[in-house]
């Protein structure tokens, strides 16, 4: 998927979930879009945060897997 088309796809997602969250009452709450966007992105933001926080360990794991372990410092005597 071309990332430049993301907003279009995003509007479709908003449309499909909105029936679960919204009524048709005419009431304007300018903060709703900001409130719900956070909940919609929560999973992605959380996952990215976990990956970022564990990035060192992940790199270490793959280095180990492919036999490129970090150089061990020479023993001190």
């Amino acid at each position, binding site marked *: 998927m071309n*990332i430049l088309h993301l907003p279009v796809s*995003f*509007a479709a997602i908003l449309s499909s979930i909105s029936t679960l969250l919204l009524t048709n009452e005419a*009431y304007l709450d300018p903060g*709703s879009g900001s409130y719900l966007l956070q909940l919609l*992105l929560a999973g992605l*933001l959380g996952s990215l*945060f976990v990956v970022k926080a564990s990035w060192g360990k992940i790199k270490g794991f793959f280095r180990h897997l492919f036999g490129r372990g970090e150089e061990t410092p020479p023993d001190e005597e």
Partner: protein
Amino acid sequence: MKNSQRLTASFRDPSGFLFSGNGSIYRQINQAYHENYQALMESGLYEKLVSENLLIPHKEISVEPAEPSLAYKVIQPEPIHFISYPYEWCFSQLKDAALTTLAIQKLAYQHGMSLKDCSAYNIQFHRNRPILIDTLSFELYHEGEPWVAYRQFCQHFLAPLALMAHRDVRLGQLMRIYIDGIPLDLASQLLPARTKLDFALVSHIHLHAISQRYFAGKTVHKAKVTRRMSSTAFLGLVDSLESGVRRLQWEPRGTEWGDYYQATHNYSLEAVEHKLTLVKQFIDHIQPTSVWDLGANTGLFSRLASNQGIPTVAFDIDPAAVEQNYRACVSGESTHLLPLLLDLTNPSPSLGWQNQERKSLLERASPDAVLALALVHHLAISNNVPLEWLAKFFASIGPWLVIEFIPKSDTQVGRLLATREDIFPDYTKQGFEQAFKSLFTIHRAIPITDTERVLYLMEKHKDVRENFNPS
């Protein structure tokens, strides 16, 4: 307290408000904020923020509240020398203010609290570092809730920074039009398409704008929203905003770093040295408690005052000059110098509710001394301001004036007149002195070596100092 007066900048927040009395500024905390204030003070958050210079320190004080029926406590915050606004900041000042806000939010979350306001106006430059001045911005965080100040952070910080970095640095001035930050649909339209490839910008500006537009006019039943914001998601949101802000860069173009002053002026080294010596002498004579340097460029002459510990504001119209000045202040730890962006021909006006929410430049402070070096020709010739009006303008600012006159024979003025008719018959040394003599006493008028320029030390008539010796 007699003669206490509510300040007009803090009327929105039911948690409390600022008021003045007996020459000091106080903040009344209302009963409605009682629980949150206790949490701030008892959770260790206040101590942590103050120790890291992120929140203005205050002391609880026993003076009569301005509105006793609402009051819980009165606090007295440490005073800020000069209140500045986001549309007067250069790119790095706004970026540092944004990062400070996010650092505060992370610490607040660790202490079970969250920022309920994210207004850029709540950040001020105190000893040249950004600091939160609104002690009542915190609230107890309820697990699972999204960040209530998310929209405000995006409008006050992320959108203007993205526009300045990706489109044009002058778009920071949109903050002067939109007092609650740049609308995200406008920012989304103005940003180039390539910003949709940046995760933070596509999420927090482009998709945010779509989401706002989509949900506007629809009622959200919060009770029906079963989805919650996990701890990692909340931290992920703040981290994503921080990464996004950190990635935004703007570099001053056109001149070499650190060579700005020399590159744009036609002074000889001797002339610069002589001018530096004279300005220093004049400042030493005045011994001002505060200085404004108008048309300060990168602050070469401002530092003659600020390096002595005199609180100095260095104004310039050029975002690149202010940016360079600010970066030099940060790297050199110049704590008494505040560089700000200002077009003197159209200075910051009174803004907001009843034109009283944000003060105009001249309403905010009155410095002891004004430096106006290599400035008059820009105002008198480029902007057609009559010399008498210039004298009135400077007299309205402060009692002391260090001002440079540059005659038509100087190449800088010649450049301004090269493509237009000379309609300034009074723009002469005599005409200049005549215009200023009606309001100022001219104590010194010294030609600058190797130039045709003259540096003046003037004092407004009504404020002649008894012990001044103009030898």
